[in-house]
């Protein structure tokens, strides 16, 4: 049984690795090709980064929706919320101020 679970867990790591590798390769390819318009490539990069971060949390850091892991999930989600407020807010505020002060 132990061996079976072990193999299953190994498979999860392999899946995670494969997904992460793909999600890395796509944006790199997009940028390397140089043919994709800038705003499109920006969205691709952002989306892939977000997905890959989720892949890492799911397959490497073992965060999921199961009951025992809820405390950590809540912690991570709360942190991400604050991160969004703080980092997003900083970018917004500074862009706004700079636009008003550099005619």
């Amino acid at each position, binding site marked *: 049984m132990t061996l079976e679970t072990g193999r299953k867990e*190994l498979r999860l*790591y392999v899946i995670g690795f494969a997904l992460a590798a793909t999600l890395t390769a796509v944006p790199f390819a997009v940028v390397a090709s140089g043919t994709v318009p800038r705003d499109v490539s920006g969205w691709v990069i952002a989306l892939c980064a977000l997905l890959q971060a989720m892949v890492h949390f799911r397959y490497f850091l073992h965060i999921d929706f199961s009951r025992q892991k809820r405390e950590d999930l809540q912690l991570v989600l709360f*942190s991400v919320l604050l991160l969004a407020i703080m980092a997003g807010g900083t*970018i917004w505020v500074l862009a706004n101020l700079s636009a008003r002060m550099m005619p």
Partner: protein
Amino acid sequence: MTQDAPRHPGLNLGRHHPEAHAENEKLMFGFWVFLMSDLILFGIVFATYASLTNPMGQAGGPTPRDVFSLTSAAMQTAILLLSSFTFGLASLALKYRQPSLRAWLAVTLLLGLAFLGLELRDLVQMVADGAVPQRSGWLSAFWVLVPLHGLHVAAGCLWLAVMLVQVTLFGLTTQVSTRLARLSLFWHFLDVVWIGVFSVVYLGGLA
């Protein structure tokens, strides 16, 4: 705490150490909290970097296109991702008491050092090109953001080396196992941060 207490995610201690789970609940949770605090720190530096990545912040100095190499960034990314995977294998080896544990840890350490070597090479090249932090606000932010991650990786490598020694000296005691579990969190977390680095700094700068 009983043995039925929820096992901490990422804590692959296996059935050999039931009491270790209880003991480590708070250590692991505390480490998660620390990582989240660290995440905010990185977020702040990222936001600062983003707000300085514009012509005003670059002050007529070098731009991302002048100093970044997509190939080098891709190599670093690949190495770090691979090291994350090998650490995962080490975690499994730890959980199932396989003798390959030390080998996987050593491989991870080597990959980490290779990553640092590549990053260092890039930074040296940038200095040679005059892209020093004193040149512009944008470069200042770059020189804080990327080396900050590098410093974390270096700390992780040092920690790995210490753990290799401890595994050899003490064997897989509870303390050593749980330290390895926390180190694995740290290592995977650094890879998550690196996703941000290569997306925002390298791909964002070169797109």
